[in-house]
């Protein structure tokens, strides 16, 4: 198992120039338009940005469960994983058939997903235990009885009281907080190396929110999985993350270690976000008070820098004509803005 220090330093998941578009009769939606980031074992990466900037589609692209009208048209999603005979290999998930046996063995087994709606992310027609044991039985090849036992153990490990009883209850019999705990139990039931948490606390009250975040931190210390934490809430990022990726209209505009992002943000969008740090209890989808204008309609993406219509430092003639690229602006930190880079000569 121990392939040395160097192996640990390798990212467990690398997303490179990922583009996921939706092809619809009404028009083309470039939901993700060049996302770049890495996940590391035992570390948490925060992905932040206003509602609609492509965070969830990025998550679904990694799992290859984007809806039928959406397609990954470019980029790589490289997963480092142990194959059947213990060899570490690098697998490009974009090259796999979404419905293939291999891809299905990765979903739920190597990568777990938790997302926002604790009300509706479980089916109301089956018990919690049934829904957890289903994944466990399939991926870990356990018998029905063993899978059920594992479901109970998982429920216990996420702090659900009386798991032997809860396992036979239906989701609507649990409170929102317990349901989200059960969801985390399900996502971690097959011991994945990556957990994608898409706004896991947005729908919860403040106290519960803090408890769930603490739970995630504790579980990460125990199990060492990488967490990709999607949120629009910078307060959550400050508390939880090691690295941060800031997205705007499907593109990564800035990324770097959490301290640098909070203390020396470079991109005007990140700076504006920081000025408007939503308090932890704020509603999702609030407009950012310090950023003028609103997010453009997905069908009408601005030319040039996607942020230029709202940017207070936009340079006419440059920002509305050319597209900036993500380039280094400091140690480990990158931003996509002409304030720091000359435009790359168009080929």
């Amino acid at each position, binding site marked *: 198992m121990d392939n040395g220090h160097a192996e640990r330093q390798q990212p467990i998941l690398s997303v490179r120039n990922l583009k996921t578009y939706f092809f619809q009769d009404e028009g083309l939606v470039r939901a993700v338009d060049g996302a770049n980031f890495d996940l590391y074992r035992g570390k948490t990466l925060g992905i932040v940005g206003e509602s609609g900037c492509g965070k969830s589609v990025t998550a*679904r692209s990694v*799992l290859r*469960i984007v809806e039928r009208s959406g397609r990954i048209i470019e980029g790589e999603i490289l997963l480092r994983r142990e194959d059947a005979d213990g060899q570490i290999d690098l697998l490009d998930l974009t090259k796999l058939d979404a*419905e293939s046996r291999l891809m*299905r*063995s*990765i*979903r*739920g*087994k190597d990568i*777990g*997903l938790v*997302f*926002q*709606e604790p009300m*509706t*992310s*479980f*089916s*109301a*027609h*089956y*018990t919690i235990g049934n*829904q957890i044991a*289903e*994944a466990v039985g*399939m*991926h870990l090849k356990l018998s029905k009885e063993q899978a059920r036992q594992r479901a109970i153990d998982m429920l216990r490990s996420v702090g659900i009281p009386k798991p032997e009883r809860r396992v036979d209850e*239906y989701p*609507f*019999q649990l409170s929102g907080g317990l349901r989200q705990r059960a*969801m985390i139990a*399900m*996502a971690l039931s097959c011991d994945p190396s990556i957990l994608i948490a898409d706004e896991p606390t947005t729908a919860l009250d403040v106290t519960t929110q803090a408890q769930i975040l603490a739970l995630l931190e504790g579980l990460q210390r125990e199990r060492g999985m990488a967490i990709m934490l999607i949120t629009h809430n910078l307060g959550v990022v400050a508390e939880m993350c090691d690295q941060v990726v800031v997205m705007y209209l499907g593109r990564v505009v800035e990324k770097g270690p959490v301290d640098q992002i909070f203390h020396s943000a470079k991109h005007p969008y990140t700076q504006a976000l920081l000025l408007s740090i939503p308090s932890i209890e704020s509603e999702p989808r609030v407009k950012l008070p310090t950023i003028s204008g609103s997010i453009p309609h997905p069908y009408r993406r601005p030319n040039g820098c996607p942020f230029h219509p709202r940017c207070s430092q936009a340079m006419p003639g440059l920002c509305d004509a050319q597209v900036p690229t993500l380039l280094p602006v400091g140690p480990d930190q990158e931003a996509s803005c002409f304030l720091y880079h000359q435009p790359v000569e168009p080929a």
Partner: protein
Amino acid sequence: MLAYIIRRFLLAVITVWAITVLTFVIIQLPPGDFVSIYINSLQSSGSQVSFGQAEAMRAQYGLDQPMTIQYARWMGMMLQGDFGMALAWNKPVKEIIGDRLVLTMVVSISAIMLTWMIALPVGIYSAVRQYSFGDYAFTFIGFLGIAIPNFMLALILMYVGYKYFNMSIGGLFSPEFENAPWSLAKAGDLGKHLILPAVILGLAGTAQLIRIMRANLLDELRKPYVVTARAKGLAETRVILKYPVRAALNPFASTVGYYFPYVVSGSIIVSLVLGLPTVGPLLLTALVAQDMFLAGTIVLMLGILTVFGTFVSDLILMWIEPRMRMEG
């Protein structure tokens, strides 16, 4: 859960009682009674009936008593399994209705089965492959199914079946089995004859159920729990069948409830066209002749079957919907 079932059952009993009262009132509503109609028909054929004779007849059938007494007597007989005489036939109602009621249920249940067997897969296909060629094709056929009147469809299919497939059509039995005692061969013969009525009676309902199933499933497919199921790594077929389809099933349960009265009363014309020995046509003649015992028994039986069907619907719903089971 048991409390829920008991409540439902009590409700069913009360409903049946209400139906008996209603039935009785409706039968009494038209002016005149069976005797006056009978006398009219005798007079029009030239015979004379004296006032005394008419009164004697009324007394014999209890028609001279006040309504409440008549109702009480009727109920009393019913409870003892005596459904009275079919006045126009001069035979016990039981004898006339017996087989027909069973056959009515057989036809109805076949139509429901057929409806389910077609609507479930087609509805799932249409939702999962929304806007595909197949979806449009089924939608088109479905609208035809709803638009064409049943009796017309019956005539067309009878014609086609007779002309091109040499099918024996009309009725539920071949002549040689008509009055034969029940046997395996007779049941097989019934099965062959059932296809046509089941298709005709089931078609409009099938088309509707496909629309409902498609709409429900489209709704369910958008819900987060489907994403959860996919993210677990389940195969797509299993994702669809175990989760959203299960959630979209409710209308299938409710069909059981409304199908009996629909198939029986709504399809009297079809039954007449196809010559089906069901209670539908019988009810029509009984109502025309103001044969109160016969009509009353039929309406009552249909009412009971409907209430029973609804009760069964509820039980199925409870099995599909854990929330109802828990909170009901």
